[in-house]
């Protein structure tokens, strides 16, 4: 991999990390999103991924910047699993099921939304 690619990844991951920390900070301060910012982050990244897939970009540097760097650092899978794990430990099985369905359905819908925005 050339130096160009490395720089693209670095810039993208910096942006992703900053956006995620910002959303986390806002949601903790304002108490808007009822305690979990992970849902917002993952749904947002699904929307971006839908747009990205819809545009069908072939530029390698743009893939490195957006998909590997930005979206990779913005979205998080392990925190999502940890939230589910926490709900199991607290024996809140109904809210576990609801949260699971919520994340998957919302991210699917937003992925489709992003995908179809580009084809208009």
């Amino acid at each position, binding site marked *: 991999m050339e130096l160009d690619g490395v720089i693209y990844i670095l810039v993208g991951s910096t942006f992703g*990390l900053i956006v995620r920390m910002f959303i986390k900070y806002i949601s903790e301060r304002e108490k808007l999103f009822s305690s979990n910012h992970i849902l917002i982050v993952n749904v947002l990244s699904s929307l971006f991924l839908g747009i990205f897939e819809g545009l069908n970009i072939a530029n390698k540097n743009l893939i490195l910047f957006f998909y590997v*760097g930005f979206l990779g650092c913005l979205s998080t*899978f*392990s925190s999502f*699993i940890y939230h*589910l794990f926490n709900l199991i430990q607290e024996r809140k099985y109904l809210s576990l099921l609801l949260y699971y369905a919520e994340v998957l359905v919302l991210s699917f819908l937003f992925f489709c939304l992003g995908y179809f925005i580009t084809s208009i």
Partner: protein
Amino acid sequence: MNKKYLYTLLLTAYFATFLRFYFNNNFFISIIGSFLYGFFVARTISKSKREIILTGFCSCFTSFSGFVHFLYQFIIQGYYLKLFLYLNVIVILNLIVMYIGVQLSRKIT
């Protein structure tokens, strides 16, 4: 929030991103990430270290968009049953791995 903390956070994020780029296998990555998350969540470490490891390393290492991208391949090919199966299997497997991580971490201390 001081400068040193911010730099360490950024450096771990970069490290995690390059590690993810190097492995380039979403399933494998999510398993390892969940294990590490479970392992470090059960440890008693200081708050800033915890933040760096959990939100810096583990969260940047695993990616939800990679997971969605992985499932998207099945949608294009039209394997809807396979999509549903893989989705649930991956999440359940990750939960089990995280449980193992937590238990292992408690055993060691």
